[in-house]
């Protein structure tokens, strides 16, 4: 009997081609699609699971002659991902729900169901490569197609999750995937690709927060590092680190958002020179090989999904944390987003960027931690 693999389908061209390729490779393929949470009344807007996309996924499964199941993940998604999103904003960071979804929903909730169905593997249409050698833990690499690489959001995967993972698209480019879909005459959703969060359904995240966490929109002062009040902000949730436009401060030099001081409900701004920074610390580190490295090492770090990797020195700290010192100053460290560590294209691990301590006190604290 051939090896069973569950493909997490979405109706999109990537997961459809992933299913077709695995079938061609001789796996017994089963399609599953998660029904994720949407705000009541906005169900048809959820980018990940509209009735239309589910219909297409079902059609693809029918064409391939594989079983297809819709799996209700709404409650799990709401209680983990959506709560994490709201709590993140409440604590002043900019959360990345896709990280939480991959860790807890796709690669935990759905994987459990795939394994219960008798599958040895679960596959997705992510652009990322996995190196698997007998007796060795799996190693996660960037995709061949750099423009489509999704290793950033999969940096959250633990060895026990990677052990069951298959990523059939990692060696392909998007045009190649489209060509395979065309050749197999696979239907695919016509909607254009989007980076929006699925449960926002194309809506601005601030409107969602205003409905679901209205207390977070309270106005407060805009200050510089010296504590001088320069204006009033309309609620911290409306700003992102590094933002220049829309601050409403008249000054000869443009101001940039440096920090959000949640305790004071203050937006800290400064000029361009103050924006760049060399150092950050990240917590809740996940190491794809399981154990944290014991010694400092040189690596490349990506601080946003679409950021360019930059060389840095990584120093492991106590308690699943690391200190990262970039060779050159970087802009736009955003607490709550992931810092993902790469070496020669391999994802070593990732963690969440922590809010920096107040600027003046910072270097001593970090020095102490680094020496600890």
């Amino acid at each position, binding site marked *: 009997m051939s090896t069973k693999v569950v493909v997490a389908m979405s109706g999109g061209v990537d997961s459809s081609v992933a299913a077709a390729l695995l079938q061609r490779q001789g796996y017994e393929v089963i399609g599953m699609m998660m*029904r994720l949470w949407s705000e009541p009344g906005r169900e048809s807007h959820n980018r990940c699971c509209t009735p239309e996309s589910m219909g297409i996924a079902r059609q693809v499964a029918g064409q391939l002659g594989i079983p297809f199941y819709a799996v*209700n993940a709404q409650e799990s998604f709401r209680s983990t991902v959506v709560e994490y999103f709201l709590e993140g904003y409440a604590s002043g960071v900019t959360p990345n729900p896709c990280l939480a979804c991959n860790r807890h929903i796709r690669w935990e909730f759905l994987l459990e169901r795939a394994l219960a169905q008798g599958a040895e593997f679960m596959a997705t249409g992510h652009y990322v490569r996995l190196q698997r050698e007998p007796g060795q833990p799996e190693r996660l690499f960037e995709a061949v197609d750099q423009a489509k690489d999704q290793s950033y959001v999969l940096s959250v995967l633990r060895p026990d999750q990677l052990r069951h993972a298959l990523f059939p698209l990692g060696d392909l480019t998007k045009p190649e995937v489209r060509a395979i879909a065309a050749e197999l005459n696979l239907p695919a959703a016509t909607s254009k690709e989007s980076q929006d969060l699925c449960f926002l359904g194309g809506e601005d995240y601030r409107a969602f927060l205003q409905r679901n966490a209205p207390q977070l929109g309270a106005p407060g002062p805009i200050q510089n590092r010296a504590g001088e009040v320069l204006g009033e902000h309309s609620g911290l949730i409306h700003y992102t680190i590094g933002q220049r436009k829309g601050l409403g401060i008249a000054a000869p030099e443009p101001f940039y958002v440096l920090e959000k001081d949640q305790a004071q409900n203050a937006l800290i701004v400064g000029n361009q020179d103050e924006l760049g920074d060399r150092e950050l610390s990240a917590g809740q580190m996940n190491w794809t090989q399981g154990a944290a490295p014991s010694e400092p090492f040189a690596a490349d770090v990506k601080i946003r999904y679409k950021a360019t990797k930059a060389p840095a020195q990584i120093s492991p700290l106590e308690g699943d944390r690391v200190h990262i010192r970039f060779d050159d100053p970087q802009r736009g460290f955003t607490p709550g987003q992931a810092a993902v560590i790469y070496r020669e294209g391999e994802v070593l691990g990732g963690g969440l960027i922590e809010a920096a301590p107040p600027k003046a006190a910072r270097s001593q604290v970090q020095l102490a931690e680094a020496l600890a």
Partner: protein
Amino acid sequence: MSDPKTPIYLDYGATTPMDERVWQVMQPFFSQDFGNPSSVHAFGQRAEAGLEAARRDMAAQLNAEPGELIFTSGGTESDNLALRGAAFAARAARGANHILVSNVEHAAVARNAVQLADSHGFELELIPADQQGQVQPEEVAARLREDTAVVSVVMANNEVGTINPITEIAALCRARYIPLHTDAVQAGAYLPINVQSLGVDLLSLGAHKFYGPKGIGALYVSEGIKLLPTQAGGSHEEGLRAGTPNVPYIVGMAQAFSLVQGETEARATTLRSLRDQVINGVLKSVPDAQLTGHPEQRLPNHASFLFQGVDGNALLMLLDGAGFACSSGSACKTGDPEPSEILTAMGFTREWALGSLRVTVGIHTQPDEIEAFLTALPALVEKSRALETA
């Protein structure tokens, strides 16, 4: 474990495979005797002959007059025509504004009644069923009013299989001159349907539940019962259902109905023993399980259960993976299950109601298939319980 490549079908309550003999009688009416039965010419005459022969056959099986049988697109349309048609006609004739419907109806009746209340100003009153999903005549009697437009009580429930005392309920309604509708869609294949001995005024049937084709059904409308048509147009079907009749399907339905009704007793005996094999086996081998519906007064092919701490849809996936096709009260292919309204109406908590399983056997079911199912089920229930606690 059965081979998932040739799965075992235990979902006859959802639909049935069409009988080969039904297909035989349908065939000529597609391309050969294809005429419009309303046409004057020879083509139309042949189609009309087929149509009216089917009506006479089916009416005879039901112990009704041919003119009392209206062909529709299926059970849902029959329910719509009955409930809406009777409600609006009773309002027009005598100002009646009260609708009495049991709380264990199929959605085709239940949602209709809700819409009549919400959008058309009718007063909807629900008749509570007991814990076994049965509607007691005294609960109906206590709610009948002068201004009751129509009463609707399902003959046999689709989710829990309970059979209702329709004869007694019908007598109560008839004594008050209030029309009673019964949805007999689930009952059609397994219970004798005699509208005279039942004493009902309106009765819905859908062919695909009794080994006939999908997309065709019938509504029995007792002589003298007034309905407002829900679909206006030509004067087909006594002016109650406009649209060219689907002749081949009607011919097939009549044939299928005559086949099942001719054999209800013999079939019921075989099915009952398969059903009891399921019920006894499941209750013996699965812990924290209970039978839903009435233990005896239930459809001979219908077994339904609740398993504590199970997501019914997850269990269906596991069963399908192991090669067994069943359904659940919250059956929903879009992954958005809500506990069944029928089970919650019967008093089950959400936690229990989400873990429902319906096993409905049919004429092709074999005892060894039930054995295979009973062997596989306990481990699959445990697996789905583990998923809920993970």
